[in-house]
């Protein structure tokens, strides 16, 4: 019988959202349309229209050694062209942001090839070849994994995910890379904090009801509480119990 991954336990909406994001057979819901040029501006790795700088010659010119693994694994477009490895990093507010670091890493690992995600408590970085990165970033920004107010694209100085929101509903950012102007969020700096020549519009912040229905974070005050999901509690207690007993007697 073929194995069907379950992706995660739980009966709550949060658990369901987590599974939906992780499952590559579920199409991510496209919400906004940030252009490729705008994404290049936010990333700040190259100027829009500039050729991709390379780290090595294209694989076709390089002359690959005879290797069975290289025959099995098709290189991604970026690897084929010899692109540099570049990154995008996100900070997700604890107030019902649609995704969160661990969730992002799982989601990306299930959905994309040739990536190197890094998971930290308040931020999540994903590294890959530059042209692959731009495609992945477009997915991560234009779909339901992103909210302009509660998610920040922050290459450095990420502090803010666990702080109270500002009066206008934006997550704190000491570099104020994006501002709320006329109801939409505009990036005025790229992800590392260098001012942009033009403002990049990433759309309207989603409302509280949407965020609560689409978040992958438990929050007892503003969202779904962890304790309300009996299956998740049972799962975590089982893991805890097995971890505790494991060294002594590795059976249930």
């Amino acid at each position, binding site marked *: 019988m073929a194995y069907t991954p379950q992706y995660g336990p739980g009966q709550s909406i949060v658990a369901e959202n987590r599974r939906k994001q992780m499952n590559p057979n579920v199409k991510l819901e496209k919400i906004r349309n940030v252009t490729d040029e705008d994404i290049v501006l936010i990333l700040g790795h190259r100027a829009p229209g500039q050729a991709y700088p390379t780290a090595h010659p294209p694989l076709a010119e390089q002359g690959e050694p005879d290797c069975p693994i290289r025959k099995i694994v098709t290189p991604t477009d970026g690897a084929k062209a010899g692109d540099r490895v570049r990154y995008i990093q996100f900070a997700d507010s604890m107030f019902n942001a649609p995704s969160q670091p661990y969730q992002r890493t799982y989601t990306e690992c299930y959905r994309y090839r040739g990536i190197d995600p890094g998971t930290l408590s308040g931020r999540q970085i994903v590294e890959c070849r530059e042209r692959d990165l731009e495609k992945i970033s477009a997915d991560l920004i234009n779909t339901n994994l992103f909210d302009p107010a509660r998610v920040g694209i922050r*290459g*450095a*100085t990420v*502090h*803010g995910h666990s*702080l*109270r*929101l*500002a*009066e*206008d509903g934006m997550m*704190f950012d*000491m*570099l*104020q890379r994006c*501002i709320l102007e006329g109801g939409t969020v505009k990036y005025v700096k790229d992800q*590392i*904090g*260098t*001012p942009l020549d033009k403002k990049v519009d990433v759309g309207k912040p989603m409302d509280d009801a949407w965020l609560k229905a689409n978040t992958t974070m438990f929050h007892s005050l503003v969202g779904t509480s962890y304790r309300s999901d009996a299956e998740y509690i049972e799962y975590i207690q089982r893991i805890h119990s097995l971890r505790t007993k494991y060294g002594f007697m590795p059976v249930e």
Partner: protein
Amino acid sequence: MADAEFPQCRIVTERLLKPETVEKILNKLAVIPGIRRIVINGPSIPQKVPYGPARGLDNPHSGKATIRVGVTDVDLRVQVGTFLLELETRDIVSQVEEACKEVFTNFSYSVKEGKFMRSTPTQVDYAKYGPNANEIMLGLVDPKNKTGPTLIQGHK
């Protein structure tokens, strides 16, 4: 240390405040007689980009503004989310609550009585101010910061 212990209270807002709101609440507080000291707290907004490849660039930020409290200009260096107040008597708390009620209309806040400011010098305070530190300076500003507290004209 002086023996006198003054009552203190802390205002915590549900949201981090815009400079305009901070100006509004501080102007309400400034006219209440009997507030000895106010500390405003929140996450820091640096003058320059502190980390990363853009380190050293200027950091334009709408939260880093100069507000006017009474007749004094105050440079905000943090996005304010907490106010610590030292009062002369406990009955002023109700007036503080009244001021908060008028200003914080779009989100909740809490006013708590307790002891929130430092009363004994730390090692860094001692290094900066010496053995005869002015008690009013303790816990008011970061002793390592070059800029001192702002004095607002009182009522006495």
